[in-house]
């Protein structure tokens, strides 16, 4: 990761999120600094995914703002913020017809990241590289989505239920990958029901 792309902090100032007439949360403020992880907790339907989509810039806050502080100063622009985000949504975004290696090569090229073949070995999919994704289990798809997150080389990770569908070795893998990302100065915001296994802050919605 290039140093100039690093984010020193992400700050939410009195965010309000509304879907239609329904207000999901109001006056939400938090700050995450480089090297920190934030676990977003709360019951189903309370707005965890909406908060992640707000940060990604897909949703526009009804009130309040998000500020990214980096080497270039403060930025409020959602489009610019999106280019710093590594996204692991609750859907895996994989095509059943394409092989594991083809998918990873596509996403790496789209994000201009490096398609390091070692990434597949790291997530435990080296033997499945030539297999079309329709033959993968839910957990294996999750591992491939994690490999994509790694090749995207983005400083700000937004993870929606990162442990979903993973076995215990997969959960350990993701915890290890998250710890390494924070150790390198990245930022993680994860919507989760389980402890992240990191020295993280938590935000209760």
């Amino acid at each position: 990761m290039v140093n100039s792309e690093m984010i020193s902090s992400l700050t939410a100032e009195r965010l309000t999120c509304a879907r239609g007439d329904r207000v999901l949360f109001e006056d939400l403020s938090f700050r995450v600094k480089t090297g920190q992880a934030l676990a977003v907790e709360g019951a189903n339907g309370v707005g965890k995914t909406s908060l992640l989509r707000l940060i990604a810039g897909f949703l526009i806050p009804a009130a309040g703002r998000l500020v990214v502080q980096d080497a270039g100063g403060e930025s409020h622009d959602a489009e610019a913020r999106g280019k710093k985000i590594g996204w692991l949504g609750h859907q895996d975004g994989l095509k059943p017809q394409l092989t594991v290696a083809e998918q990873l090569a596509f996403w790496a090229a789209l994000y201009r990241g490096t398609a390091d073949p070692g990434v597949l070995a790291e997530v435990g999919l080296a033997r499945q590289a030539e297999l079309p994704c329709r033959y993968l289990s839910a957990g294996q798809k999750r591992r491939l989505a994690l490999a994509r997150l790694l090749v995207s080389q983005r400083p700000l990770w937004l993870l929606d239920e990162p442990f979903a569908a993973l076995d215990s070795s997969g959960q350990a893998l993701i915890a290890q990958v998250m710890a390494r990302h924070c150790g390198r100065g990245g930022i993680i915001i994860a919507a989760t029901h389980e402890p992240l296994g990191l020295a993280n802050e938590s935000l209760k919605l």
Partner: protein
Amino acid sequence: MSPFFTLLARDVRLAARSGGSAFLALSFFALVATLVPLGVGADLRLLARVGGGVLWVGAVLAALLSLDRLFQGDFEDGSLDLIALSPLPLELTALAKMLAHWLSTGAALTLLSPLLALLFNLPPAAILTLFLSLLLGTPAVSAIGAIGASLTLSLKRGGLILPLIILPLLSPAVIFGAGAVSLTLDRLAADGALSLLAAFSAGAVLLSPFAAAASVRLNLGG
């Protein structure tokens, strides 16, 4: 490879793989072009007269078959979120997708059309005009279709509404395209009709990425 061509190559590959849209569109086009002469009968003059129009309508409908999935597949499996966060602007994403759609349907249909034109007893000069008109006109089908596809991408049965939105907008392409073939049959110059068709296509390809991108943005927030 740049992100633009990466996305283009991946969409063409998906269309060409088993269960893809390219083969479906070609088969549909070939079936329509075979059934109409069977229905109309062996009046060769009549067949030549309706040939241009039938082939043009067949090509538009064949291209329409796969249009509703242009953004919808990526929207439903979460890929569109990831594409939106990539360095590629959504306008170029829309352009790459419509170009991929054109290559896998419009361009393929154009290449097949001279063969099918023989079923309508079209003379060589009219076949050439038909080929040129499809080559110039089918990009407009993919471009205007992309606007419709982006508007209906979050609707479960969007494929049913899509033709209602875009077919009226495509009528100029059918009028000029089939008109050019008729002019050639009457031994008149078809340059004017072809030029208007090219202008219509150029305008559509230039403007529709902006409209489609705006509509995709709205749907991602919905």
